[in-house]
């Protein structure tokens, strides 16, 4: 059964007198425990799609279901990592990680669970620091720890690694995959890096802009293969997808 089912999703945006279509005719299904990378030009409504799935944006037409239920942040557990990581500047690392389980009133199975997550993401010794004292990569690790600690039904990430330098980005992508393998959380991430989409997405959704529609959904045969990033197939797939995109976006 599909974990996420989006049918006939339509989102419009009112600016003054005019209404614009932000998303039009979106159909998408995502299986339990699957990762899905959404790639598209700016204005294709990628972020809007995440806002709909996270329950932030509720003014839409069509069907959006998580586990057969309409999106309801109160009863579902949805982890959302915005572009700026969404850490609260006034909470230290420890309290930021705990924020999710605090709001959801879930007690982590034990203190060990939280500590294990801190360990897994390499945040030992940083617990008392504030986000302002962390590097971008460390902030992203905190955001991931917060999201995964909740064991979310669905994890949403909006260009999660785009503000990081190339080396840190590869590093954190591996951290993400590593944690994802342990928890098998259904994940949708928005990106504008083709390599990132091919590296992290079991499914790659290519969108086009004005109005935002889905052009292609590609099942990624290379997902999860050890060291794939350095293999020629990886580059070939990236080039092939880029070519598809170029033709599509220049229409």
């Amino acid at each position, binding site marked *: 059964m599909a974990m996420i089912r989006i049918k006939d999703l339509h989102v419009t945006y009112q600016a003054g007198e005019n209404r614009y279509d932000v998303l039009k005719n979106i159909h998408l299904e995502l299986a339990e425990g699957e990762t899905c990378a959404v790639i598209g030009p700016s204005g294709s409504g990628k972020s809007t799609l995440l*806002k709909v799935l*996270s*329950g*932030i944006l509720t003014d839409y037409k069509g069907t959006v279901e998580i586990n057969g239920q309409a999106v*309801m*942040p*109160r*009863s*579902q*557990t*949805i*982890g*959302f*990592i*915005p*572009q*700026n990581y*969404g850490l*609260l*500047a*006034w*909470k*230290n690392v420890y309290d930021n990680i705990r*924020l*999710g389980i*605090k*709001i*959801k009133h879930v007690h982590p199975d034990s203190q060990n669970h939280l500590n294990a997550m801190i360990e897994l993401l390499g945040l030992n010794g940083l617990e008392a*620091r*504030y*986000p*302002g*004292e962390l590097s971008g990569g460390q902030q992203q690790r905190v955001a991931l720890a*917060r999201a995964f600690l*909740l064991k979310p039904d669905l994890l*949403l990430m909006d260009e999660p690694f785009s503000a990081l330098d190339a080396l840190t980005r590869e590093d954190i992508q591996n951290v993400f995959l590593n944690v994802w393998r342990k928890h098998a959380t259904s994940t949708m991430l928005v990106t504008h890096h083709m390599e990132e989409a091919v590296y992290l997405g079991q499914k790659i959704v290519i969108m086009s802009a004005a109005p935002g529609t889905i052009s292609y959904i590609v099942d990624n045969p290379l997902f999860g293969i050890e060291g794939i990033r350095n293999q020629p197939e990886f580059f070939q797939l990236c080039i092939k997808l880029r070519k598809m995109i170029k033709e599509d976006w220049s229409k």
Partner: protein
Amino acid sequence: MNEKGSGIWYLYGILIFIAAWQAVASWINLPIIPSPAKVLENLVKIFASQIAIHGFYSLWRIVAGVFFAIIIGIPLGLCMGYFPRWDRYLSPLVYLTYPIPKIALLPVFMLLFGLGEYSKILMIFLIIVFQVIIAVRDGVKGIPKETYYPLYSLGAGFIDICREILIPASMPKFLTALRVAMATAVSVLFFTETFGTKYGMGYFIMDAWMRVNYLEMYSGIAVLSNIGLILFGTIDYIERKTCSWQYK
């Protein structure tokens, strides 16, 4: 910042102030400006027996006024900052009443609430509450929308949002407003205490002035200024404890 050192800097401020005072006193050399040593001697002599009770009354009035300004101003400011509708309805009301010189209303308050504590506390409350409302509201309005998203997606309610985001985020602006308002509140308190009471630093200082007892008058002024120092020091302390994150 070296936290342990801040006490030394307070002492340093007091010493410079006393040195300047001494210089002016010896230059003018008239009884209207006695030397700090004489005032200090007088202060030590009469503090426990005469001034302390007045200081206590003044402090209690300020604390009560600030307390009410906080428990009314913060929730109002939070709601006005967070819910655009509240802001639309209440802002015009705030802007209309904020500029009214509260001190001009003192006779009215005295008629309505009596000459005693209520009218004085109400006066301090009215001076501080507007600044608290506006500072907290603007603090909340200045929070980027994205800050809320992770909490919305967790299904957080308004109480959660208040506790985790609105209150801590607007705290620095609130404390600054409190500092600015506090100085005005102390000056106005002085004025209100010259009416309808036999207790309070305002009464004590004006009484000494009438009796042409300059030593006592300056002792009173010194105590009032130290009350201010304690209040500001307390706000600084609270800021260090709760808002240290903004300097990271």
